[in-house]
């Protein structure tokens, strides 16, 4: 009986996230339409990836004709933050949860689901977790579909302007924590500056886009981590999206 109650409790908690995902994945659907990808591809990516930054970056690189190594590496680096959440989660759940269940839970791990699960602390059960993730997952699929199908209805000016939405979400994710943490602030500023430098400086800008972003981010993080190494121990404090649901991304 506890399993069902836990699942329903999680389900209820996931409703606001599902609504937010509907909106974000709508812009992903639009972006795939704009990039002239087929609908099945947009839905396949959303069903298997369930992540905004990774999916947007992937289709952006594919439109530039990126090679497989560049694509894989870029998406992997962007998704490295999940390793932190995955790690934090491993410290919280009960040991007796089987590897198979853990694997299934991992498939649904997103910034927001992690943030919500994290609030629950040591009391996370698989039922509650799957409850949390159910509606956001559905929202992500529906939003992608609507964005792609309804994209044709909108005037081209609207579709062009919608291209800025994902970047605004990135800004909304990295700026608030950068305000509070000097290490993050430095990593963000150097990352942005280097990325611009690599984009505008002749010869350097012949490096493929995915590698430019990776290079800028790794150098920036290296400098920030060397100057501001963290001292605290709590695993939950290491993860980027524990503060508030609104700061995460899909």
């Amino acid at each position, binding site marked *: 009986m506890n399993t069902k109650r836990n699942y329903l409790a999680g389900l209820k908690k996931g409703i606001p996230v599902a609504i*937010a995902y509907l909106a974000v994945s709508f812009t992903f659907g639009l972006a795939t339409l704009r990039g002239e*990808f*087929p609908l099945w591809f947009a839905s396949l*990516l959303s069903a*298997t*990836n369930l992540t905004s*930054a*990774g999916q947007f970056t*992937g289709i952006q690189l*594919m439109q530039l004709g990126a090679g*497989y190594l560049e694509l894989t590496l870029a*998406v992997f*680096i*962007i*998704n490295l*933050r*999940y*390793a*932190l959440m995955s*790690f934090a989660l*491993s410290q919280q759940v009960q040991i007796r949860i089987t590897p198979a269940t*853990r*694997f299934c*839970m*991992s*498939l649904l791990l997103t910034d927001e689901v992690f943030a919500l699960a994290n609030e629950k602390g040591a009391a996370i059960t698989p039922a509650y977790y799957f409850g949390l993730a159910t509606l956001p997952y559905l929202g992500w699929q529906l939003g992608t579909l609507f964005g792609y199908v309804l994209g044709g209805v909108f005037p081209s*000016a609207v579709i*062009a*302007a919608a291209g*800025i*939405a994902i*970047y*605004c979400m*990135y800004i*909304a*994710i990295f*700026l608030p924590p*950068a305000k509070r943490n000097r*290490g*993050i602030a430095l*990593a*963000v*500023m*150097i990352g*942005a500056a280097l*990325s*611009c430098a690599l*984009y505008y400086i002749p010869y350097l800008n012949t490096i493929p886009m995915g590698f*430019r972003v990776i290079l800028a*981010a790794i150098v*920036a*993080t*290296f400098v920030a*981590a060397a100057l501001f190494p*963290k001292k605290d121990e709590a695993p939950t404090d*290491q*993860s*980027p999206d524990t503060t508030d649901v*609104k700061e*995460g991304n899909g």
Partner: protein
Amino acid sequence: MTLPYLLISAFLMFTATLVPRFVPFVFIKRKISSPFWKSFLYYLPYAVLAALTFPYVFYSTGSVLAAAIATVAALVMSFLELNMACVAAVSFLIALGLGFVF
């Protein structure tokens, strides 16, 4: 884009997303202790998002000037910690409106 390119890319993206998600949760039992690597992992996602945003955000709509003004608005709203959906919606409307002007 050819069908094999789409299918292979989709598979690679799926793998590149899945591995960081499940490996620590399923396998890692110990805690990382090095402050440098802990902070490196902590800062990295934000640096990636910043490097992904700049300068690409300026070319994300039809007009560089409209996009730049909308970006400044997004920075201000995010600094004030407004809701992510609100930041995106307002910046979108600014980019749309100014897109007709410039």
